[in-house]
């Protein structure tokens, strides 16, 4: 009985993540359109797109990895989702959130990209291959400030558990204010994580068609889109948990994640994209500096 409730909870989590992630994608398109003086698509457009993509026939075969790549991406998104506490001190969907820790999570988040890289590599499209190399080098870029920010928190509070960090914030206040340097580094790394402008060179249509996904259509693209939405929700929830004190109810979670989400979206609207080496240089500049400051701050105090 217990296990049944747990499974139900996990399924519910996945569905919520999908719905919310897709909704955010739709709102992103709407906001973008309004900034660009347009009406824009309705906010449910992304659901229709995903449904249509999944209902398309697919008759491309490049090899086994090509079929597994999107699945890897999905597995990674869902896996990460299940290891993250969605709500604070909540018994509805605890999932696996009290078993995993930050270091494990870091590995899990990279796993999907690597799977996609293998899949895209097998399609043999040079655009995909170049896109994958760019994606991986950009990942190397933003992982450094991101890991530094996390390490600073871990050192400060002597824990790697997300639940413990959330608990700490109840006592000391939000880490956003407690550890401002770590927060800045993490937010700057988030720009790269979301792959909106200026860090969207991975799938830049103007030079690479659409990068790694250029050979994937129909169901695979639908799967990637859904897993991308879930992953966006995962990242936003993780940031909320780590820096914004988590959320005690669903409305609070939506408000906090949406506000966080608007940061990369609104910055992306007004910036052109960096080239790969410029992006990496950017991440290894100020964001890493703030990360280092955060670590020093943690070590000294």
């Amino acid at each position: 009985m217990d296990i049944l409730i747990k499974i139900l909870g996990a399924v519910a989590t996945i569905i919520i993540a999908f719905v919310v992630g897709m909704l955010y994608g739709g709102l992103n398109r709407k906001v973008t359109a309004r900034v660009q003086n347009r009406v824009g698509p309705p906010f449910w457009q992304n659901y229709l797109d995903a449904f249509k993509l999944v209902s398309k026939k697919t008759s491309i075969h490049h090899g086994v990895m090509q079929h597994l790549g999107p699945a890897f991406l999905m597995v990674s998104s869902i896996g990460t989702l299940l290891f993250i506490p969605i709500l604070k001190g909540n018994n509805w969907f605890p999932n696996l959130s009290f078993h995993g820790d930050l270091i494990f999570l870091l590995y899990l988040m990279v796993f999907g990209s690597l799977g996609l890289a293998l899949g895209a590599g097998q399609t043999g499209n040079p655009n995909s291959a170049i896109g994958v190399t760019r994606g991986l080098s950009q990942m190397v870029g933003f992982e450094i400030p991101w890991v530094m920010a996390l390490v600073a928190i871990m050192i400060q509070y002597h824990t790697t558990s997300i639940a413990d960090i959330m608990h700490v914030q109840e006592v000391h206040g939000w880490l956003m204010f407690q550890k401002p340097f770590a927060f800045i580094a993490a937010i700057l790394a988030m720009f790269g994580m979301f792959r909106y402008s200026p860090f969207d060179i991975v799938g830049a249509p103007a030079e690479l068609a659409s990068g790694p996904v250029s050979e994937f259509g129909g169901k695979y693209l639908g799967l990637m889109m859904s897993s991308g939405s879930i992953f966006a929700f995962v990242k936003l929830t993780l940031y909320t948990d780590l820096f914004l004190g988590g959320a005690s109810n669903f409305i609070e979670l939506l408000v906090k994640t949406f506000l966080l989400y608007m940061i990369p979206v609104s910055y992306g609207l007004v910036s052109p994209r960096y080239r790969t080496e410029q992006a990496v240089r950017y991440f290894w500049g100020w964001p890493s500096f703030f990360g280092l400051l955060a670590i020093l701050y943690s070590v000294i105090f």
Partner: protein
Amino acid sequence: MEREKVTTLYLGPQHPGITGNMMVRLKLKGDTIVGARTEVGYLHRGFEKLQEKRNWLQSFTILCRFCVPEPDPVEEAYALAVELLEGREVPERAKYIRVLVLELARMASYLLWFGGQSGSAGLYTMGQWSVGDRNYILDLFEDITGGRVYHMFIWPGGVRRDLPKGFKDKAMKVMDYFEKRLEEYDTLMFENSIFQKRAQGVGIIDKEKAVEWGVVGPVLRGCGIKSDIRIDDPYEIYGELYEKGVFEVPAFEGGDVWSRALVRRFEIRQSINIIRYVLDNIPDGEFYNKIPNPHKWKIAKGDAYSRVEATRGEVGFFVASDGSQYPRRTHFRGAAYVHAITLLENVLIGANVADVSFIMNSLGTCPPEIER
């Protein structure tokens, strides 16, 4: 060893980053381009052959399809060539209307170019703004000529119609709007540090070699050479306007994408000046010198070449007549004919593969005028 591997990347013809329908075959070492070859011919319709079967006036339906973003300079070039060939005079009012239409076309083309240039760098908001605003100019075109994209307006001997009533107020309002809007474009695009980082030092053209290599128009002015057909080989009333100081020809040192972008941005400002002046000072009178019945209109044997400054640079028409009512031979010279083939192939070498469409846009590549 792995780094030495040369990859071949086919950019186009179906590719979102390519301007129009053409292909660039790139040889890559890592992310750096070591060889480039342009392949064109996807838009060849044999216009010059078709013109041999159309009389002097029937060609005008064909002319505007030579370069789609900016059809008017081509019409102007052909009309000028026919006028040079025949020695036909144009009334003063027609000259003013022609200049008005040409400058509006220049603005419309630059606004579209804003979209291409910023879109290839990933700044889509700019393209949405400027292409959306371009509709106001197309509205003015509809008022003057009746057509949104293709106008068929500038004919040998004048223009097809007079300006409509109340046009001046409407046009002035649009110019006011654009003056305000240009400042917003500046904030979004030119003052953006990432755009500056992307554009500066990319796609450099050597100033010493530029003229020899056939670089013309804004690209040449981006190399710091003040050269413009409107003042070098003046046509219509441009020489007069330049002497009166109505417009300036901006030129910026550097020879990179950034200086070319600046040239284009400042030329929009100059176009607004010219349009304001023309609207204020347009003389009354005829707008059209009557031509003979087009089916019996014969032009004596001879040839002529006209030059017009379009947004991509110098465009020109070579027209040869054999004394009949059909041209013996017409040959169009587009700026992109040189820019997109020999120049692009050389500028791309050593560039990053991420900059290909960025550089192509800044050179003003326009495939339909290459292959016609």
